[in-house]
């Protein structure tokens, strides 16, 4: 462990996951601004339940649940991520320079998660707030049962996009393999276009020529015998 002003380096090679998490929590409590995590070696659970402000820089690939169950944390992951990066983030910011596996930003509650590459299946599943930006394509069941929040997908989206979503909005810049049940396509307003552009510019992600906007159609909000064909697919 080496201390450089307000930035501290943790070399994962010589530490256990538990000691790494405990050190990060301790540094955050003591107002250290930044921790550089060297050699993450795709280990799971690096950066779990950090609830004081701190910036984490992962110099490499991470495994499952990186920066999960966190609040007020910002992070840059310079490699790729395993499943569920940013799971249940309350507030803060996570930027993934590479790709993210399945379930990125699952159950996101606040803050912003940015995946500059591709994302796997179930991206933004059960989102309860916040913003998820995916620079590339995303997989099956993205936005499934989304409850709140905003998702911007610059590439193509897989099947069952936004299936059973309660609320929230999904913007897709590429092709949609199949819309999920209980969704509809709406026009994107000029105000929304401006907001998307400014977000993508900020994170240096190429802006697609146009977007489709996906929102819930409300047909699944109440058991209704008139909507049997829709319900048949769901329950």
């Amino acid at each position, binding site marked *: 462990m080496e201390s450089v002003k307000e930035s501290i380096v943790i070399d994962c090679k010589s530490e256990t996951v538990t000691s790494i998490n405990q050190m990060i929590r301790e540094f955050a409590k003591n107002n250290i601004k930044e921790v550089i995590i060297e050699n993450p070696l795709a280990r*799971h659970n690096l950066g779990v*339940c950090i609830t004081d402000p701190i910036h984490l820089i992962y110099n490499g690939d991470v495994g*499952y649940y990186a920066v999960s169950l*966190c609040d007020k944390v910002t992070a840059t992951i310079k490699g790729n991520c395993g499943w569920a990066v940013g799971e249940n983030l309350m507030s803060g910011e996570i930027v993934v320079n590479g790709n993210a596996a399945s*379930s990125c930003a699952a*159950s996101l509650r606040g803050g912003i998660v940015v995946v500059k590459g591709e994302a796997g299946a179930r991206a933004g599943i*059960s989102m309860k707030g916040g913003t998820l930006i995916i620079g590339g394509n995303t997989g099956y069941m993205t936005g499934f049962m989304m409850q709140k929040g905003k998702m911007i997908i610059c590439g193509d989206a897989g099947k069952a996009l936004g299936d059973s979503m*309660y*609320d929230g909005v999904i913007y897709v810049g590429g092709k949609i393999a199949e819309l999920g049940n209980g969704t509809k396509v709406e026009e994107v307003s000029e105000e929304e276009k401006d907001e998307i552009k400014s977000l993508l510019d900020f994170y240096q992600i190429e802006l697609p020529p146009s977007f489709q906007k996906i929102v819930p159609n409300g047909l699944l909000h*109440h058991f209704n015998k008139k909507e049997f064909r829709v319900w048949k697919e769901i329950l």
Partner: protein
Amino acid sequence: MERNLIRKSKVWSPEKIEEIQEKAQIGRYRIRGQATKRMDLPSFDDLVFTPAGLSRVPLEGYRERCDTKVVIGEGKVKRPLVLETPIMIAGMSFGAINAHSKKALGIAATRCGISTCTGDGGMHPIEREYSEKLVYQLLPSRYGLNPYDLKKADAVEIVVSQGAKPGTGGTLLGHKVSEEVAKMRDLPAGVDQRSPCRHPDWMGPDDLGVKVEQIREATDYEVPIFIKIGAGRVYDDVKLAAKVGVEAVVIDGMEGGTAASPEIQLDHTGIPTISAVVEAAQALYDIGMKREVKLIIGGGISNGADAAKAIALGADVVYMGSAMLIALNCQRPIYIEDYHALGTEPGACHHCHTGKCPVGIATQDPELMARLDPTAAAERVENYINSITMEMQIFARSCGKSRVSDLDPTDLRSLTLVTSYITGVPLVGLGGKKPYFASLDHGSSFKDLLKV
């Protein structure tokens, strides 16, 4: 003239006719609360204890101690869950029941030295305030989940499925999704809520192992972690759950309760609690983890006999939900006109899903909620828990055991062939052994008869 007597049919029973005609009206499956109403399930009533006689000495009920304490996670986590009696109040969400009910259950559990459980929908502040020991459920929906509440928990229960409806997610109809419930769950108020049946961030047992480690990291290895599974493929599920490395596995039998589920599922999915406990205990035994991993059994446990028999068959603790609601006041014959308005009567009500609970438990309506006095209700639940503890001690003492946890299958006999076959507990009588006269028949000689 021929007499045409009124005869009811088994095939087209009045219940089936009513069901068909209701479905013809509503255009979907029926949804209701409570639990399965099947009358033909094997149950703990089919077992009896074989108390001490000359071959074993009973304990004096008035003088000799009979220990009931159970500790979950001892030697494994920093803060094991200590239960003064092997009973836990099962998960019932804020949403399914209201804050008054949560408060009453919390007060009663705290007085009895046992735990309550959040259920789906997050940790309500009232519940945390009044429950000294609170199990925090982590469900597929992740409603209300946050790192701060996670750190406040005394145990974490990862719910895979529920006994009343294994293989599906939760349901909470719009009448009960009040502003407060909606806020806690991040849902639009008044929406018919369906929860997912799979967790959003793991899929199989290997991933679950990583998830458990994540929760360990989040809780700093302080509190025990359970995995709860609705009873279905119990033997394999329990082995997989135990291997993940949790302190306890919860198995919820098909008699388990619900605030709202498809009725067809209540009656036709899962396996009965009595069979689930045997499969679960056998699974832990077969992988050498029977002592290491605690087994918590729920689903229709209603008295000390059920609880003691479950423990004798291999459980360490029983989970009780519906019975606690009944102790609160559920089904009590008060406000009878409101039962009638729902088309039901006290003792047969299953209208938790409507949000119009006549006794103010399974409702978010402030006027109905006012019908439940949390202080008086807490006393009833406390009395009930204490009665179950005493009943369990009766069986343990009479079988010569100084600890309830020492009850074992040899203390039991089956009353029915089915139960004997399911549990492996011998039938009453000789339990399969041939009687001394088995070799004799009508053709036996007088000389042979004299020998016996």
